[in-house]
């Protein structure tokens, strides 16, 4: 059995390995942000909103026919959106249980852990928590 979660994290880690400084890293993150399909304006509801202090993140999740979780995310700030894109890429399509229990070591590996501090203004930490909550919630509903 291939562990998709591990595979994806390794992939991301590799992708970030050769960046020399933060500007390069951000360049890539911005790229990922631009590539992430925006969500519909109609889905930018308060109930889907994760409030960071400065940038807003919308996160939606549904369970697909196979019982796996499909995420969609967006943000008004492109760097935040890029971070969201990374999270979606790593967790998308996994089972609720995998998501709920995911050990997301790649975040520290690629140096984004500072962005996860509870006092950060971008809401990445809340986003990760929210994704896991979806995992837990969808598990319960099985």
């Amino acid at each position, binding site marked *: 059995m291939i562990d998709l979660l591990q595979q994806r994290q390794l992939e991301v880690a590799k992708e970030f390995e050769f960046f020399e400084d933060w500007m390069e890293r951000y*360049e890539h993150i*911005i790229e990922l942000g631009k590539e992430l399909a925006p969500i519909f304006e109609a889905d930018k509801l308060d109930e889907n909103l994760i409030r960071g202090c400065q940038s807003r993140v919308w996160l939606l999740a549904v369970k697909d026919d196979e019982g796996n979780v499909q995420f969609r995310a967006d943000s008004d700030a492109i760097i935040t959106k890029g971070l969201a894109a990374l999270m979606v890429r790593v967790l998308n399509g996994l089972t609720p249980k995998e998501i709920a229990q995911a050990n997301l070591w790649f975040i520290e590996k690629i140096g984004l852990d500072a962005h996860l501090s509870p006092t950060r203004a971008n809401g990445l930490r809340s986003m990760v928590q929210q994704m896991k909550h979806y995992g837990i919630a969808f598990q319960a509903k099985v």
Partner: protein
Amino acid sequence: MSKAIDPAALRAQFPILNREVNGKPLVYLDHAASSQKPIAVIEAQREYLMHYHANVHRGVHALSQQATDAFENARTIVQRHIHAAESCEVIWTAGATDAINLVMQTWGRDQISRGDTILLTRMEHHANIVPWQMLADEVGASVDVVEVKDDGNLDDEQLRQKLALGPKLFAFTHVSNTLGTVNDAKELTRQAKAAGIAVLIDGCQAVPHMEVDVQDLDCDFYIFSGHKAYGPTGIGVLYGKRELLESMRPWRGGGEMIDVVSLEDGTTYAGLPHKFEAGTPHISGAIALGVALNWLNGIGAEAIMDHETTLAAHARNGLRSIEGIRFIGSSASAAGVVSFVVDGTHPYDIGTLLDSQGVAVRTGHHCTQPLMERYGISGTVRASFGAYNTLHEVDTFVAGTIRAVRMLRD
């Protein structure tokens, strides 16, 4: 004429300016949020704690006496710095916010009642809005504002009209932390006082940048924070006219502010300034703030203001080449603050990319949400300058911003 600033020489006094951030030399352009501290201020606080700390007042021992003398001497330094008539008109508070709340809860509760109006301006910091909203809610008064014109200046015509409606209080900022607009505090006060309206001035962004003379301004209250004026955290100042302060009831109860405490016969209060200083004060902070103001004086307010406006003008010139940039606030009399937004980018993104280049700016609403609403934006990128910033740093900031915008747009 004041002597021009030599920022290179000044910088040697700010240890923090030697550090790196994200592998780049720190360029600190967040002075309006909080200033960095010269070594003299840091050492004064340390010196106090190392060699003569004791609780002030009432102590018969030598340490307590030494601490009390230094503490009260700092009060006198503040008095002279803002040209108050007497040192008992200087009340130590925990900060500017605490000072405004003190006025709201004492003078405000006694003077403002149902149906009264409190007049503010659209450019106030939340610290000079929320307390008045809370008071208005409590007593059934209302809060009104003088609007800001596109260029970031107050609408003088509207001000006249609103003063004519007879509000009980006009509370306004001397200098806007978001726009840099320098209000003509003396003229505004004159108009209000002429109509018998009390005046509170928020001097947070003025004291670090210009000469302030409360007697010349003739305001009733003037407040500021130490940490924005090269001083330590946790200390601020409320200036009030003596008769006014004397007529006000105390706010916080406790030690120091009492004369006699009796459970049976009730409690009587101390005179100024102690009436408003319940509990052990922030002794080291007061002493170090005194040192900060002396330091400021040594350089000269005018020289600092000149230097900062030069930096701001240089920054605007450099940034102007960015397509879609929009400066928020362009008053001719703007202090060392540059606020802007760039079409198609989020301030947070620009701030983050600047940070990764070692440049510290503030992004967001700067605690002035009503002003953001006025301009139809959710936030700005704000660079704010202090005495220690250089033209070279401004260049780094401008180049960094241009690079950031390019990355975000490409």
